[in-house]
């Protein structure tokens, strides 16, 4: 009997949950296979027992690693082809977004339509739940799922969290001074070879400039890189960040690996093999500052000998104590390193090979490109809002990639690749652009580029808080040579809050004229939370 655990994950959460259920399965003696949904290339690939774990991202969209599967399962020509399939579904979402868990909802309806049979009631986990998505899942789904699956296959399933499972990788240390002879026989020294991840380029920073005033709470940077990577307006730069070096050193000292920083090792298993130094592992490969999920704590139990620490860990993991764990870890955004700091005895007993089980791989982050290849040849500019805030923990909470970029000095190199994102159609039709905050990034370069042709009309609704503090596009776009109707909304410059949607209504006559008589296109960029709804409401008002 094989349990297929299939996930669609954008930022790693669904993948995390999959790993957790895989550990539970293995500890209950159930063979399982964990794969991203795009590994399913035909309906026949779905086995008898399947657990779908799917997030909703963007504006109600499916994560990238299940896009192809989506196109497969939503084909009109399918009829009832899944009557042999048993499935359960975990949806992951955030109810502050209007299209809450749409992917989970749609997939479960579709599976039903196609005849698949539900093993148990699905769960639509909500980040806004007092205990986060993990709490949601454990409260309403986990034990019911294992019981129902057990009933189905006629075997009682008791996942045990305290049973140590084999590590994902085996480690082999290499003496870094001697040449290493790989199995194909060629001699190589592995010292100091900068490895560029496939698909990426190493790109140097030219300048890193703060574009919000010093007295403003938010730090927004304009970063300029030198590169001959080709791109067009609307594309994103995909960046692989590093973990902050202070956190790396802290973790190294917790693990007592200070004298092994430069040591190189090979991590291998049946399907893959990696080679790097300890420093590279904790700085470039593992996301050591990630806020750990429940499974992190479950794994710590495997190594907890110290009575006090073990007791506390087990207490955190009790079903009735979800609030306690949430208050300790998730709510203040405590990082994995910080948790290990609080459990030093346990941490020092973790065998090195288990680091791959405890921390996920760093995921790349995308930023809309704010420059234009025609206006800024050989340059890529990014507008980045630095995420930095306080919780009850003394040290600031910092977004991984935004802070990585924030700390860059000129000359330093980063790993970057280009991906398409926004489809900005560059023809003669006028463009109405709505871009509050850093959402304006793609429009900045595009407006500059379009202004090369004075016949192209452009209208930009830009929203920020204060004209003098964070209206960072005005320097670049308010020039005689730029063909632009610029309509700003400064939300806090007056008593009542004014946002872009208010301005859209105020200038409704102009918007209407452009759309109905000039065939203008409307583009919207920014947060997917409330902006799209409010903007479309405003536009509807204009049209009526």
């Amino acid at each position: 009997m094989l349990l297929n655990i299939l996930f669609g994950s954008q930022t790693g959460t669904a993948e995390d949950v999959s790993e957790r259920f895989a550990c539970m399965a293995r500890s209950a003696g159930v063979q399982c296979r964990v794969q991203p949904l795009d590994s399913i290339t035909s309906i026949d690939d779905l086995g008898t027992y399947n657990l779908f774990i799917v997030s909703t991202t963007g504006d109600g969209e499916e994560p990238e690693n299940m896009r192809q599967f989506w196109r497969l399962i939503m084909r009109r020509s399918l009829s009832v082809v899944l009557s042999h399939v048993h499935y359960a579904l975990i949806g992951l979402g955030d109810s502050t977004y209007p299209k809450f868990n749409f992917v989970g909802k749609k997939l479960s309806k579709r599976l039903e339509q196609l005849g698949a049979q539900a093993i148990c009631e699905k769960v639509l986990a909500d980040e806004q739940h007092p205990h986060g998505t993990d709490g949601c899942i454990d409260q309403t789904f986990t034990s019911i799922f294992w019981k129902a699956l057990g009933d189905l296959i006629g075997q009682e399933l008791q996942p045990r969290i305290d049973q140590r499972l084999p590590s994902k990788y085996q480690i082999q240390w290499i003496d870094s001074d001697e040449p290493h002879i790989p199995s194909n026989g060629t001699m190589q020294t592995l010292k100091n070879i900068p490895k560029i991840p496939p698909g990426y380029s190493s790109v140097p920073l030219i300048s890193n400039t703060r574009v919000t005033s010093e007295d403003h709470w938010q730090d927004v940077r304009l970063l300029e890189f030198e590169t001959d990577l080709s791109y067009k307006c609307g594309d994103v730069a995909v960046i692989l960040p590093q973990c902050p070096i202070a956190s790396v050193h802290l973790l190294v000292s917790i693990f007592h690996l200070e004298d092994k920083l430069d040591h190189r090792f090979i991590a291998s298993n049946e399907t893959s093999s990696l080679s790097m130094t300890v420093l590279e592992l904790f700085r470039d490969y593992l996301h050591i500052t990630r806020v750990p999920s429940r499974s992190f704590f479950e794994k710590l139990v495997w190594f907890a000998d110290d009575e006090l620490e073990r007791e506390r860990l087990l207490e955190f993991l009790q079903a009735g104590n979800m609030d306690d764990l949430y208050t300790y870890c998730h709510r203040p955004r405590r990082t994995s390193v910080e948790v290990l700091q609080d459990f030093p005895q346990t941490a020092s007993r973790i065998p090195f090979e288990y680091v791959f089980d405890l921390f996920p791989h760093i995921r790349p982050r995308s930023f809309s490109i704010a420059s234009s290849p025609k206006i800024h040849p050989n340059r890529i500019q990014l507008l980045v809002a630095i995420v930095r805030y306080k919780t009850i923990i003394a040290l600031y909470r910092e977004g991984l990639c935004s802070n990585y970029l924030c700390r860059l000095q000129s000359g330093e190199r980063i790993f970057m690749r280009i991906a398409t994102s926004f489809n900005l159609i560059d023809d003669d039709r006028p463009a109405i652009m709505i871009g509050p905050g850093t959402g304006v990034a793609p429009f900045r370069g595009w407006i500059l580029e379009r202004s090369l042709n004075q016949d192209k009309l452009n209208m930009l609704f830009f929203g920020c808080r204060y004209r003098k503090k964070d209206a960072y596009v005005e320097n670049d776009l308010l020039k005689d040579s730029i063909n632009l109707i610029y309509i700003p909304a400064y939300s806090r410059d007056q008593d009542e809050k004014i946002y872009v949607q208010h301005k859209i209504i105020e200038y409704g006559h102009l918007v209407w004229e452009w759309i109905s008589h000039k065939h203008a296109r409307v583009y919207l960029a920014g947060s997917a939370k409330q902006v799209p709804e409010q903007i479309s409401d405003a536009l509807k008002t204009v049209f009526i």
Partner: protein
Amino acid sequence: FFTKIILEIMDEIFARAKSILVIWADDTDPENLPAFQEILQTKAKQAHIAFENVQMLLDSRRATSSFDVILLGLVSKRDTPTNVDLLNEFFRLLRPNGYFITHIEHAKQSQAIDHFKMCGFTSCNPLDSNSSFLIENKDDDVKKLGSLWLCQKPSFDIGYSVPLRNRADSKTGQVLPTAETKKTWTMDDDDLIDTDGLLDENDRKKPDVKSYDCGTSSTGVRKACKNCTCGLAQELEQEEHAAAKQSVKSSCGSCYLGDAFRCAGCPARGLPPFKPGERVALPTMSDV
């Protein structure tokens, strides 16, 4: 070749049907109904056959998705005209993948096909056979000037929306070929269903956050999102700091252990663990 395939599939459709609805009109000779039923029953051995007058259909409000095949206006001499209301009702009554069969005059077929498609039917094809038992009761001239048409309801229920085909396509009334020799009688194009149609009213409602059972007395606190760039996180930070400043006395004696072991009012809350009797200076992260 094409006709032959269709006749074979017709046989299969009737053989598999469990429930058939025969719609007759006022111009049907009632004497013809029993005979029609008999011959239909021999073709559709496992089917329950129901009869309904077209005028009464909408009032009957039969159950959704309850028929595998609906036959319209076949028992009468002349054709029974269709309208959108009627077609919508047929669509509702048919199970997904169910079939609708009727006879249409050539001159009226393009408008009829338009209506069929508007109401959600796919794979609308004419059956080029004058000898089918289905139209035995029709006048010869009606048979000569028209065809039997077979349409299918796609493989999922209400909520699905069909993109309206170009007016130009439907006017030619071309026979749409099946791809290869697939069992499913639908166009094997790459088109996807409109996934929004999968959701009903309830799906679009957001969950009531206050109703989440957190199992303890925790209140629904405002939480800043992970990548807070709007300022709520700063506000919460001020609140947290104000609260922390108020508690000065430790009541647990384990301040030197990390937050995992400290009590709620601990003055060392938020700091890393330190050696008993010693306070470690906070290592500053880069303040760039």
